[in-house]
């Protein structure tokens, strides 16, 4: 029972890391924050070429999934590089449509999602807003046992993460109704929660790396501030948080892949741990960059500001902790 990523999975992560590392995602993030989606969509296209979206889509609809563990591996990298857009929502919408049992909707959307040609908003789990509805081809809204689709939304509102813009979905036509909707939505919410946790884990890793680099070169009192224990211990704690969140994310992905009865609780545990670890990383990054960290000039600020909303997205820490104890 080797509980380790395979060489193939690690290669996949490295490929994504290299691709995104060379892609200047910070510029795409700033553009996305200004409502200019083109550079971000270009990133999505490149991600589709590596097969990221196909991981959520079954073979009969031109995908190679569903593969929750590989998706989690990918979303760590998407988080590490702060790729903008409703990535989690689009992939979770794919899982929803795959399980809904509505052949028409699946045929309409799944091949397009796999190819990276569709951006789908998803509003479920009682969330009042849809993420990036203005960038989406359509938004699925799940309420109770009913799912609607809509292409209209209220005013776009800013969040604490400038690249995370939300709006209220408006109107819409009923796509399906009944227990199949509830079941498919339950799974989609778990997948969204898992992939948000994976994103948070990657984001936290990037924040830690960036901060370690900074405190190694920033000099005060004649020495690198990274040599001071107060700084070292804070960063050690950030690493501990991230390292212990990672296996929870992997195990939750395995549970979800196997439809294990514990999957809901496992995913919630992963979300709490990764969300908190990432937020702690952001707080440390802000504090240890000093005044520089509190400006919006360095790219790192884009990463710092993502952490808090990610911690709440698809399940606040309190909701997820309650879910863990519900078993």
């Amino acid at each position, binding site marked *: *029972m*080797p*509980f*380790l*990523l*395979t060489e193939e*999975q690690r290669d996949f992560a490295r490929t994504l890391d290299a691709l995104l590392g060379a892609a200047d995602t910070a510029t795409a993030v700033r553009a996305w924050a200004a409502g200019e989606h083109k550079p971000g969509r270009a990133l999505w296209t490149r991600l589709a070429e590596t097969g990221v979206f196909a991981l959520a889509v079954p073979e009969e609809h031109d995908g190679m999934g569903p593969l929750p*563990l590989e998706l989690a591996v990918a979303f760590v990298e998407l988080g590490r590089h702060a790729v903008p857009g409703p990535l989690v929502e689009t992939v979770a919408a794919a899982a929803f449509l795959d399980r809904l049992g509505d052949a028409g909707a699946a045929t309409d959307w799944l091949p397009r999602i796999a190819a990276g040609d569709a951006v789908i908003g998803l509003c479920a789990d009682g969330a009042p807003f849809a993420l990036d509805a203005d960038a989406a081809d359509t938004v699925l809204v799940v309420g109770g046992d009913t799912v609607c689709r809509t292409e209209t939304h209220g005013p776009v509102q800013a969040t604490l993460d400038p690249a995370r813009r939300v709006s209220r979905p408006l109107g819409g036509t009923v796509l399906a109704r009944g227990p199949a909707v509830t079941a498919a939505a339950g799974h989609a919410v778990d997948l969204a929660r898992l992939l948000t946790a994976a994103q948070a884990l990657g984001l936290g890793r990037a924040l*830690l790396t960036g901060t*370690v680099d900074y*405190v*190694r070169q920033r000099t005060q009192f004649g*020495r*690198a501030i*990274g*040599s*001071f*224990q107060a*700084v*070292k*211990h804070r*960063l*050690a*704690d950030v*690493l*501990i948080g991230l*390292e*212990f*969140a*990672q*296996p*929870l994310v*992997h*195990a939750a992905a*395995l549970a979800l892949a196997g439809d294990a009865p514990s999957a809901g609780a496992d995913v919630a*545990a992963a979300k*709490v*741990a990764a969300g908190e670890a990432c937020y702690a990383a952001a707080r440390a990054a802000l504090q240890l960059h000093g005044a520089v960290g509190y400006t919006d000039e360095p790219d790192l600020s884009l990463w710092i500001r993502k952490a808090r909303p990610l911690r709440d997205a698809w399940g606040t*820490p*309190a909701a997820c*902790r*309650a879910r*863990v*104890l519900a078993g």
Partner: protein
Amino acid sequence: MDLEASDADAAFRAEARAWLAAHVPATPLPSLETREGFAAHRAWERQLAADHWSVVSWPAEFGGRDATLFQWLAFEEEYYAAGAPGRVSQNGINLLAPTLFEHGTAEQRARILGPMATGEVIWAQAWSEPEAGSDLAALRSTAVRTDGGWLLRGQKTWSSRAAFADRAFGLFRSEPGTARPHQGLTYLMFPLDAPGVTVRPIGRLDGKPAFAELFLDDVFVPDADVIGEPGQGWRVAMSTAGNERGLTLRSPGRFTAAADRLTALWRESGDPTDTALRDRVADAVIGARAYQLFTHANASRIAAGGTLGAESSLNKVFWSELDIALHDTALDLLGPYGMLADDADDAPAHGSWAEGYTFSLAGPIYAGTNEIQRNIIAERLLGLPKEARA
């Protein structure tokens, strides 16, 4: 990547579970930090050993079952889930034995491991000194060459289990005036009832004599009781320290079992509207699960030929802080009963929460303080510059 147990591992777990169900005492033994409890725990070790459950990961020739790391982890989960007694012989099994397997002679293994496995000889550790705690290499106790062996002189302290144990192991300065403090040290074993040894028990926070000071006045140790080469003691000891912090000192089973009991306590007596307390219960459950999975990942890495280095410091900080948080939460759930000492008449769960709480408070201190561990994490894993030293 998976978390599936092999058939052999599942069978191993089932066998352990059945044995424990038939043998674990119905009521907990008295605290092992008392004379009476120490004797009771020694007897339990003998019972474990009789059916080859005391040292499952050792080779069969020394009383073990040649268990793999995964089997050991399964055994530990079953052991603590069954509410089995604390391991009075853990210093020997977890700290000394790995050193003997790596650096000892065949003669030493043949002579020492058997009685260790049965609890006939219980070992104490003798690392720290009054002036050498975190800065262990500052130790001053000496080993002076004599005919056929060494004479130990000096003082050791905070020596766990030494109040009632039979023998001890530790580091001694055998070459004075070396260029660096961790050179010229020798790893030796000695009987606690040898001429020249004075044991002064020290009460831990709750007064129980969990450790002791050792005064050594020309205590003779034969050459046969040196582990590794004289002068190489630091290197020999560090392999033990790595084991201690790494996988074997605090197995995840302790924490998953404690988290399960905490969850049961919360369901029984928790106020459902007290979400702050609920969140802490959830965090204990999440932390225990995280530690279990992290350990499985490490065990997988080791099984694939990897090693644990500075990564073991991550473990040490994590489990020690989890342990305190978990027991703190339990005491809060117990309300007015949370303050009762473990041996109080009305102590809930036979005092196990109070005992666990007191025990947990030492976790961030022993086996390398968490401050030292965080330095190691920052310097060796994150690559931050070393601090200026005096």
